[in-house]
């Protein structure tokens, strides 16, 4: 009896300690107030470039749209993955359905810590793991730009996943493993152009989120950076864009990002169509920088199994 009693107490204590550890490890972490206070005032004109570089419209505008439709950010796109179906929210400046009531602290915490204004973790389908690498100026400029696009009514449905992924608090553990704002590729003697490309690709462009294979926990295998991956949406593969997988010249890559034509005159396809439309909106130097970076990174064998 005595022993059972002791065991029971130990079990309760252990459960309590685990719960406490889980609670502590998974606290949504945000920027300290003084860091956010030091964010510069945003410039909407500059922010447009970051908007296109960041590919916001690819998920938050209706797919396949052109022109003004790409600035209608009502969300609603569904990303069907092995973890469940993620729904992109309304990020138009609508005061209740979108992010019109947010301040820069809300925005920066969402973009770079993956935490909502009410203190919940966002699922990493929202690529804050990449956006975490953005410089404060660009975050502020993007926020200023997002205030200038049309406010669209209508809330997108909530993302609902099955157990255990429905426990958002668990994302806190995932972030401890996979949220790291440090640059990924180490490139010796990188030129200013390559460094700009690195920033655009690894930060706002979030290219690695689809072009890099993921481990079982859904984190990017940074040792196979940009080596290509089985598509998270299950259909087909996303190509290897390291020098070992992509033989195109820097000029070919830049031209592809501008026009959607491959060097052998095939065309861009799949979800890259919207990405390319965004990239076409950037200044030519940005596309050239991305190309220079892709030629400078280490090559890797394909990060996906051989086809058929």
């Amino acid at each position, binding site marked *: 009896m005595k022993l059972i009693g002791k065991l029971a107490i130990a079990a309760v204590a252990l459960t309590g300690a685990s719960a406490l550890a889980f609670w502590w490890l998974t606290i949504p972490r945000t920027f300290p107030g003084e860091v956010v206070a030091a964010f510069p005032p945003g410039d909407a004109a500059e922010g447009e470039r970051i908007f296109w570089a960041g590919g916001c419209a690819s998920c938050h505008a209706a797919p396949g749209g052109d022109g003004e439709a790409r600035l209608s950010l009502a969300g609603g796109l569904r990303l069907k993955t092995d973890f469940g179906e993620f729904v992109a929210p309304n990020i138009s400046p609508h005061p209740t359905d979108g992010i019109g009531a947010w301040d820069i602290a809300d925005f920066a915490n969402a973009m770079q810590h993956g935490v909502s204004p009410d203190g919940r973790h966002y699922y990493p389908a929202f690529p804050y793991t990449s956006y975490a690498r953005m410089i404060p100026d660009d975050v502020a400029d993007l926020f200023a730009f997002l205030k200038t696009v049309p406010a669209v009514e209508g809330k997108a449905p909530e993302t609902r996943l099955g157990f255990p992924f429905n426990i958002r608090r668990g994302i806190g553990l995932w972030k401890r493993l996979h949220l790291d704002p440090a640059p990924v590729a180490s490139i010796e003697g990188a030129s200013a152009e390559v460094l700009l490309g690195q920033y655009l690709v690894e930060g706002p462009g979030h290219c690695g989120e689809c072009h890099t294979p993921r481990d079982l926990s859904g984190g990017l295998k940074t040792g196979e950076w940009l080596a290509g991956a089985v598509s998270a949406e299950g259909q*087909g593969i996303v*190509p290897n864009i390291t020098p070992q997988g992509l033989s195109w010249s820097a000029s070919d890559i830049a031209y592809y990002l501008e026009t*959607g*034509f491959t060097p*052998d005159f*095939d065309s*861009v*396809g*799949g979800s890259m*169509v919207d990405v390319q439309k965004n990239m076409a909106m950037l200044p030519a130097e940005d596309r050239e920088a991305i190309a220079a970076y892709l030629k400078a990174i280490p090559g890797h064998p394909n990060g996906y199994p051989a086809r058929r």
Partner: protein
Amino acid sequence: MKKMIFAAAALTFAVSASIAGPAEDREAMMKSFGGALGQLAPIARGEQPFDAAVVNAAVEALNANAMKFDVAALFPAGSGEGTDALPAIWENLADFEAKAEKFKADVAGVAANPPADQAAVGAALGVIGGNCGACHQPYRAKRG
């Protein structure tokens, strides 16, 4: 007897050609589009000087092939199996056909008024190229 064997062989050939046909035909047609665009792009990129003869020939070839783009013949139901053509084509056939028609109309528009300088070649490629992505986004499997 010889005639019969020949006829049987010819029939076998015809049948197998019509089974394997549409996918190969459409791939050949896509490649022909690529060939024509490949004449235009180096001019748009400034890698080759503008040459009206080259541009006109490429645009005409593209238009001639585009006019043969017949959805019913190239994408009969059930011809997606084992190819990059996604089932979405046949689930949204009206949209697919509309996109094919828009492509043909845009190419015909360029052919009716062929680009007369380097900048116009680039603009024409932009008009035509948007159609490629518009279909390859929802209707072609991702590949590497």
